């Protein structure tokens, strides 16, 4: 139990931390860091209303609180469940969680294409990381996968709906940027898709950020050059003078050329400061940037796991069965 009345105490996989009341289990886990952090494919801290949908962050609450120690009967979404004082949570130490999460990953991969080697997101894809960690070596799905045509939503952004996992992050981003949202979720069930309904471009100075929030390679940057060499791009921190945004970005380099520009992501894979369309799409000349140095990739991903430059997908479960 917390000694300090301003904070509550929560234990996750045996590690205890004091957090502010109202903190979610996921954010408490992130404060502890490391293995206790559940994967989150739809929640995004800066996007209001996000979370709850992908179910990868399910955890077991083995003790509800000091006051009411009963365990919660069902697994709960850690991104949208707030901690109670004295709560005990199991993430990786719960067999139920590992089992259910394996199921969720399998569901997410069911209709996902096997095009990692040619996907812009390759190497920094959360789904790929998850598949690596939880995936079985063979898919049990023997039916035709869902497919959509690629569509351009404006001159800068392309939507590969086939890769989408319906996390709704891009919709929340648009909602937050503008009260004139132009894209959204169409249809329902497994026919649901992200779209504008009519061929329409997304207009907003910051709309390019939907590319960065997308956990997979469904929303991509049409100005991305040397795409075929995505596995060999090297990230560099850089900044520039910008009147619209902080100008703090990551340049993905191929040799001395800028292949693409993205925002900077923290250890949870979330962009800390949104960058504007101009920085992202228009500044492809190295003279427009001050390069700070190589970007450190800290999180446990296929990149840092040493699979980065070996065109990792061959080693991921995704490709073992075509």
């Amino acid at each position: 139990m917390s000694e300090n009345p301003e904070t509550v105490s929560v234990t996750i996989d045996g590690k205890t931390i004091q957090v502010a009341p109202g903190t979610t289990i996921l954010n408490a886990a992130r404060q502890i860091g490391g293995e206790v952090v559940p994967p989150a494919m739809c929640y995004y801290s800066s996007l209001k209303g996000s979370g709850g949908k992908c179910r990868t962050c399910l955890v077991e609450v083995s003790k509800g609180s000091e006051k009411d120690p009963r365990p919660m009967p069902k697994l709960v979404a850690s991104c949208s469940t707030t901690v109670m004082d004295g709560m005990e949570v199991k993430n990786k130490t719960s067999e139920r969680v590992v089992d259910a999460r394996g199921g969720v990953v399998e569901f997410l991969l069911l209709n996902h294409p096997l095009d990692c080697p040619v996907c812009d997101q390759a190497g920094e894809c959360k789904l790929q990381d998850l598949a690596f960690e939880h995936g079985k070596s063979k898919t049990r799905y023997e039916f035709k996968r869902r497919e959509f045509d690629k569509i351009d939503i404006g001159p800068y952004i392309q939507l590969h709906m086939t890769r989408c996992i319906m996390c709704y992050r891009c919709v929340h981003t648009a909602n937050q940027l503008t009260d004139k949202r132009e894209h959204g979720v169409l249809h329902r069930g497994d026919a649901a898709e992200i779209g504008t309904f009519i061929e329409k471009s997304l207009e907003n100075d910051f709309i390019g950020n939907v590319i960065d929030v997308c956990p997979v390679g469904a929303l991509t940057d049409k100005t991305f050059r040397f795409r075929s060499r995505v596995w060999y791009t090297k990230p560099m921190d850089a900044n520039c003078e910008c009147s619209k945004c902080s100008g703090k970005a990551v340049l993905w380099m191929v040799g001395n050329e800028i292949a693409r520009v993205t925002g900077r992501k923290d250890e949870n894979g979330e962009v800390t400061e949104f960058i504007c369309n101009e920085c992202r799409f228009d500044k492809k000349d190295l003279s427009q940037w001050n390069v700070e140095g190589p970007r450190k990739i800290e999180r446990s991903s296929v990149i840092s796991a040493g699979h980065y430059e070996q065109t990792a997908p061959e080693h991921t479960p995704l490709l073992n069965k075509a």
Partner: protein
Amino acid sequence: MSKKLLLEHIDVEGIRTYDVYRKQGGYQAVEKALKGMSSDDVVEEVKKSGLRGRGGAGFPTGMKWSFLAKPDGVPRHLLCNADESEPGTFKDRYLMEKIPHLLIEGMILSSYALGANQSYIYIRGEYMFVMRIVEQAIAEAYANGWLGKNIMGSGFDLDLAITPGAGAYICGEETALIESLEGKRGNPRMKPPFPAVKGLWQRPTVVNNVETIAAVVPIIQHGGDAYAAIGIGRSTGTKLISASGNINKPGVYEIELGLPVEEFIYSEEYCGGIKNGKRLKALIPGGSSVPVLPHYLICKTAAGEPRLMSYESLADGGFATGSMLGSGGFIVYDEDQCIVRNTWNFSRFYHHESCGQCSPCREGTGWMEKVLHRIEEGHGTMEDIDLLWDIQRKIEGNTICPLGDAAAWPVAAAIRHFREEFEWHINEPKLSQERNYGLVTEKTFDAQPA
């Protein structure tokens, strides 16, 4: 004849109209409440009655009402759930179509109890013709001073409107219903916050089923104690049952809770027995979402007790050997029906109705449908049965709303009780396309607690 509380006057000529309804004692409960009872008194009577939600979950209505947040200056809303889309269920339609003023009277009483001044009935879009009937009745109620400002000089104001959906089973889930009423896609919300705190337009909201709200009328008229005296144990009062399938007399029946299942199926007063002299094969007692029971667990529980039409008795044995009263959608199967085909049919339904928000339900429902279809068509393998079991297991309990569970349970129950029929489909692919399996063999279950 057993006691009728809701359908007592259903056969009176013209009962759909205000004048006839009033002549049969209609709106007396409103008079009684508005003249002599405080809103808390009304809540108290409903608590005493033991009334439980008739929409499926069976949650005590009085208790649900007492959870409603009442912050100062924030309007509260009562929403009536007339989305009725659970396969096998058609009782709310019957009630609204035949005796719409009973629902309106219940809405007035319940709104008064909750201090709600603007209430809505959300009806599935396919019931447009029923909506017209209710809308007409609402107009009559306004014209006669039962709705609007200062009803009967009591100082209580109530505006009531009915508004349609447009084809989505999921909008029967209360938070999806709220989203839909706000003019949005029917995506269920994450809970908490619960509707009782933040519901329609972020205001405190109660959602109740049509039949639940209608039952408030006899409760106020005769008193909560009188209502609680009907029924059995914690299953008080009467319940509308929608009976369908291979029976002689399908239709809507009002039963006293506690009626033996056997009597309901075989007596002339109710279903009148199995059609064409066939044998009973299976029963889904509470709408397509609840577990199917094989013939030997229908009239008797696994413990050998007579199975009764009550929340407790139908659930006796847990999911191992029991089912649920659910919405009262009572679907009877005779020996000629194929459980595999029927399970596939229902899984197609859930696949079709998933909102698609959360991954286990969005992806898993379609997968189950495809595997079931493969088995049904004679192309299945033994591993498919285990695969199905595993898929349903990974959906259940892991989704945002209970539609995931509703999709998983029928598959689980079918495999649990009818595994030999699934295996027969796989081992006899040709034969299974020509004829049906018939009755499954009785299994003995270890006496395991629920």
